[in-house]
């Protein structure tokens, strides 16, 4: 192999072999997950910069061009909707809103859920009992009622939507994190940290949370499609984003009404929604395999 080979070997062995890097390697070797990641990146790119490609505006109606099928010459690549707005731009914009809501709501639920669950799981006892009773009570609350209440008080607002969804979703995350924390608490290195005298706050942040991030990340990735569907559902009911802003759910709702006469108004938004959901699911599955605790090999 010669000197170059030796050097390469040495360099490889001197590099930090962090578990995250190993996991990333495994993820990238999973073809479905890799494809899904690439696709998702493309979608993200498209919803951010895509509208720049089109000369049309998302909000200005044009009664002359109402319900036109896709037509390359006029650059209405997806056609127009019932009041003549370009569907391509509206679909991308809807996609952006849906993704934004989903990502932000997931972030909220992650932050609240992880801290809540880790604290309850680590301390156990009465604190845990109280905290989880609160979660049980919140679980019992009807989601829709809560959302409608918020709508009535604060008017329809995109911020509200993701707060509402995040506020429901953190409950699941908290339960999962609590369960994981309770089993992590008995692991050798956590007991060692306690024996050293590390403060509880640092034990949670330094030892518990990093070792459950695997589960959390997987769960979050699989929650995003759930939230997108939830948001779509709300929009479908007319409780989602307010016109003229739009989301994939609202577009699907509108498109469903035009299904007979202008099927493309349903087809495009529904396809983008389905594609995005598939991507997240495949990535979530890939992450779960990559972060499998069989990394002790």
């Amino acid at each position, binding site marked *: 192999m010669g000197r170059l080979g030796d050097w390469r070997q040495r360099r490889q062995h001197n590099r*930090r*072999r962090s578990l995250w890097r190993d996991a990333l390697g495994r993820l990238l070797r999973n073809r479905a997950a890799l494809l899904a990641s690439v696709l998702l990146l493309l979608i993200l790119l498209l919803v951010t910069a895509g509208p720049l490609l089109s000369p049309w505006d998302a909000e200005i109606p044009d009664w002359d061009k109402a319900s036109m099928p896709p037509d390359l010459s006029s650059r209405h690549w997806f056609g127009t909707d019932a009041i003549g707005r370009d569907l391509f731009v509206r679909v991308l914009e809807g996609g952006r809103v849906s993704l934004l809501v989903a990502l932000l709501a997931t972030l909220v639920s992650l932050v609240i859920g992880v801290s809540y669950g880790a604290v309850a799981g680590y301390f156990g006892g009465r604190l845990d009992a109280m905290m989880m009773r609160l979660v049980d009570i919140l679980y019992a609350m009807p989601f829709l009622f809560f959302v409608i209440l918020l709508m009535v008080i604060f008017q329809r607002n995109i911020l509200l939507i993701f707060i509402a969804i995040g506020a429901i979703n953190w409950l699941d995350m908290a339960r999962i994190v609590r369960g994981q924390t309770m089993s992590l608490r008995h692991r050798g*290195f956590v*007991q*060692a940290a306690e*024996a*050293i*005298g*590390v403060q509880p706050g640092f034990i949670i942040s*330094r030892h518990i949370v990093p070792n459950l991030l695997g589960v959390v990340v997987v769960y979050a990735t699989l929650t995003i499609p759930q939230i997108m569907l939830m948001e779509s559902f709300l929009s479908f009911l007319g409780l989602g984003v307010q016109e003229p802003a739009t989301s994939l759910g609202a577009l699907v709702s509108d498109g469903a009404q035009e299904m007979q006469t202008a099927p493309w108004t349903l087809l495009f938004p529904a396809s983008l929604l389905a594609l995005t959901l598939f991507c997240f699911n495949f990535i979530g599955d890939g992450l779960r395999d990559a972060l499998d605790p069989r990394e002790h090999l």
Partner: protein
Amino acid sequence: MNTASTDSRPVVLKVTELQCSYPVHGGGLLRRHEQRQQILHGVSFDLARAEALAIIGESGSGKTTLARAVLGLLPVDHGEVSWRGESLLQLSAEEMRLRRRDMQMVFQDPQASLNPRMTIGDILAEPLHTFYPNMAAVQVRERVRGMLKMVGLLPHVLNRYAHEFSGGQCQRIAIARALILNPRLLVCDEPVSALDVSIQAQIIYLLKDLQRKLQLSLLFIGHDLALVPYLCDRVMVLYMGEIMELADCDRLYSQPVHPYTRAMLAAIPRPDPDWRPESVTTRAHDTRSSSEERPPGCIFSDRCPHVQQRCLEERPRLRQVRRRQVSCHFAEALMADSDSN
């Protein structure tokens, strides 16, 4: 072997009549009455400054429970643990946490005791960050490197992760971590049981070396009597939560008194194909299950080759018999017996 006369040195750790138990759920779906299983039945001992005491026992003897109870990592039912004159069991959780700077622990499974997502450097620096949050980064690095050298590891391990090292190396790292705060007491919970025999002695010698150098008080928990004399001054033999014998190392090994001690010594394997362990010393089989009641008499009575009627009725107490402590009704007779042999 050590003939340390511990009378001259001040006692730093004093454990008195320690009793610990675990809650155990009653079997079956509906019977959820809480039973407790008693693990320690009143253990008492002293530890002097710079002294090494071995606590040897089988699984189920309560040795790990004892180690953790002494360090306040487990709740205690009765008894007293006093460190340098201060009662530890009366302290609040936070007060106890602050005392931990002086009392550190090394665990049985070296890899499991190291956080797989932290670099070795961070693992070693953590105790310093915990108790000396204002220590300069340069100083921390220096301390960490110094500690690595002391346990015989090279600095390149600092950027690596625990899973890249062997059991023996991980245990060295764990020892470095335990000693980086310069504690006065080091509790080692079966530190070599998970290691290959060929590596065990390396760690024993390392501990011996460090104990001498740093004048540590050492509590060594284990199940193998063969390694003990190379590390410890005194030995305590524990069985089912009670002390059977407690003596200076050389006295115990040259003249074991308690039948259980004798059984354990006789069972130490020898690398000799023609040697067979003596079967006379352990009579009955190890058949007691955890749910059975404790017999009223001596806890060792069902396995003892010298059992008498008194042993079945009356529980012996740990008492001083000629410069050692033994828990046996017939200690004097057994001693005289081996004297004459």
